């Protein structure tokens, strides 16, 4: 498979402009929706943004370093509860509570990441699943603080617009950070860990430090998203914020768009949010099954995601900036 020819490069540059324009238009539409959209539209897009934040967050650790985490919802859940508890028990204003949510998730990420990132491949994936489950159970048991299985009720406020923009800010920051990482040697070092960790270590890459750093930043963004979610929805319970389906969606979206790419999680979450909404409204009883079929199809036919598909066709350049 040779690199793109000169003629292909011109086509690829045009493709990149179209690609960038589509993303810019989407971003523009998302920006103005709170001003014009119905509550249904706002809630739907807000959901999409939340998924996108989670996908982007998952991509930072799993997409780049190849440490596939099946327990990423843990950080979303920790963020939700940290913000919820800060607001309910501490009377802390929401913006600060959300910052606490991010910090708490990052701290837990560092704590569990240190031992967990010594595991590789399926052992890490399942290990993280165990971590998420353990945290969910701990939150359920700690009833005096967390409200246990009955959940935690936050003071209800109509903050949909504010939460919407806050979530958009988290998504934007995640993309910017990923872009920065991907365009510096550190991005290649993370990818080198995915490609061959031993060869990365043997060539002087500080593997442990990098993995842990990526994991903490990833957890931070998931925690922020969780905090914003709790603030907006004003009721959280362990079953919802630690749901495995949150992780599965983040994985599916990232894989559809392209793992270890900058815009892959964004493209994947736009498409998958749209598709699952369409399926849900048309086939209310089997939409989850159809989503499952879709994920299987992605793995089988688009293993590198849409980004790689377009690159292989020469429609967009082979650039780490995309």
């Amino acid at each position, binding site marked *: *498979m*040779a*690199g793109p020819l000169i003629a292909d490069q011109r086509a690829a540059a045009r493709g990149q402009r179209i690609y960038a324009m589509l993303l810019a238009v989407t971003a523009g539409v998302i920006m103005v929706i709170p001003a014009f959209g119905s509550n249904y539209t706002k809630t739907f897009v807000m959901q999409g943004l939340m998924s996108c934040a989670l996908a982007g967050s998952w991509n930072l650790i799993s997409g780049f370093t190849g440490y596939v985490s099946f327990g990423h919802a843990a950080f979303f859940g920790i963020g939700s509860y940290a913000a919820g508890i800060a607001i309910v028990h501490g009377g802390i204003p929401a913006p600060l509570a959300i910052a606490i949510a991010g910090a708490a998730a990052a701290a837990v990420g560092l704590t569990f990441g240190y031992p967990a990132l010594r595991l590789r491949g399926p052992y890490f994936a399942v290990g993280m699943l165990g971590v998420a489950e353990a945290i969910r159970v701990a939150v359920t048991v700690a009833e005096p603080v967390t409200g246990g299985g009955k959940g935690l009720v936050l003071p209800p406020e109509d903050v949909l617009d504010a939460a919407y923009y806050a979530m958009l800010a988290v998504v934007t920051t995640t993309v910017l950070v990923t872009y920065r990482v991907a365009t*510096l*040697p550190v991005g*290649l*070092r993370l*990818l*080198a860990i995915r*490609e*061959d960790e*031993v*060869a*990365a*270590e*043997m*060539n*002087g*890459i*500080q*593997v442990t430090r990098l993995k842990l750093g990526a994991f903490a930043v990833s957890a931070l963004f998931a925690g922020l998203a969780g905090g914003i979610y709790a603030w907006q929805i004003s009721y959280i319970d362990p079953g919802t914020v630690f749901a495995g389906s949150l992780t599965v969606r983040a994985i599916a979206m990232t894989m559809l768009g392209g793992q270890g790419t900058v815009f892959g999680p964004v493209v994947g979450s736009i498409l998958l949010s749209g598709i699952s909404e369409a399926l849900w409204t048309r086939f209310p009883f089997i939409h989850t099954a159809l989503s499952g079929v879709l994920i299987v199809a992605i793995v089988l036919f688009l293993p590198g995601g849409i980004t790689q598909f377009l690159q292989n066709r020469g429609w967009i350049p*082979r650039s*780490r900036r995309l």
Partner: protein
Amino acid sequence: MSGDRPATARAAIGSTPAGAILEVAGLTRRFGGVIAVNDVSFGIVAGTVTGLIGPNGSGKSTLFRLISAEMPAHSGEVRLRGQPITRRSASEVNRLGLGRTFQLSRLYPAMTATENLVAVTRGEAKHALERAAASLDFVGLTAVADEFAANLSYGQQKLLEFARVLVNDPDVILLDEPFAGVNPVMEERMVAHIHALRDRGKTFLITDHEIRLIMALCSRLIVLDHGELLADGDPATVRADARVIDAYFGT
């Protein structure tokens, strides 16, 4: 430690010249009941090319892994410029100036040749591209700089791995079977590169089964058999050693 050979025989081989840049002292590693490397000691001088030969399973690759800190030794010590490196991580050992390649190339397949180098290049990020380009140019891979490593030929992959080691300018370079499966043209290139680098003061420790090349390339040969040092000396002497002929060269 090995005990079954008289100490006098050991003193004759595995000499550590004064001022050796890389020293191995009493290095031992077991795998279950098998002693893969048994009390091996030697030292090599800066600016030389030393060959490490021996039959399959004699412990060459394990010795490489111990020296480069890919795996810990059960006893003994490795010193780089007199500084013990045995307890350090592989990443630290590389940063101290010891680079290595692998018997089967271990590249980052979904990354381009240039990216393979930039990923490991230390120092300021803005110079990483230039240094990667210079290293690729040195091994003659400029034409495939933007090709994915997975798409390169076997020989090109070997050269790319060599370029990746060189990009951080290590003082000591361990090459694990650099000639295995490489065509004659590539072989010649590799030999020329090694000589050019040796003349610039780089130190090489090379294992390979291409005895013709090893004899021509190295000023000293160290022979391993069953994890123990069997012989050590200049190529002609080692070639004539009855024990080496018996264990490795055959008749």
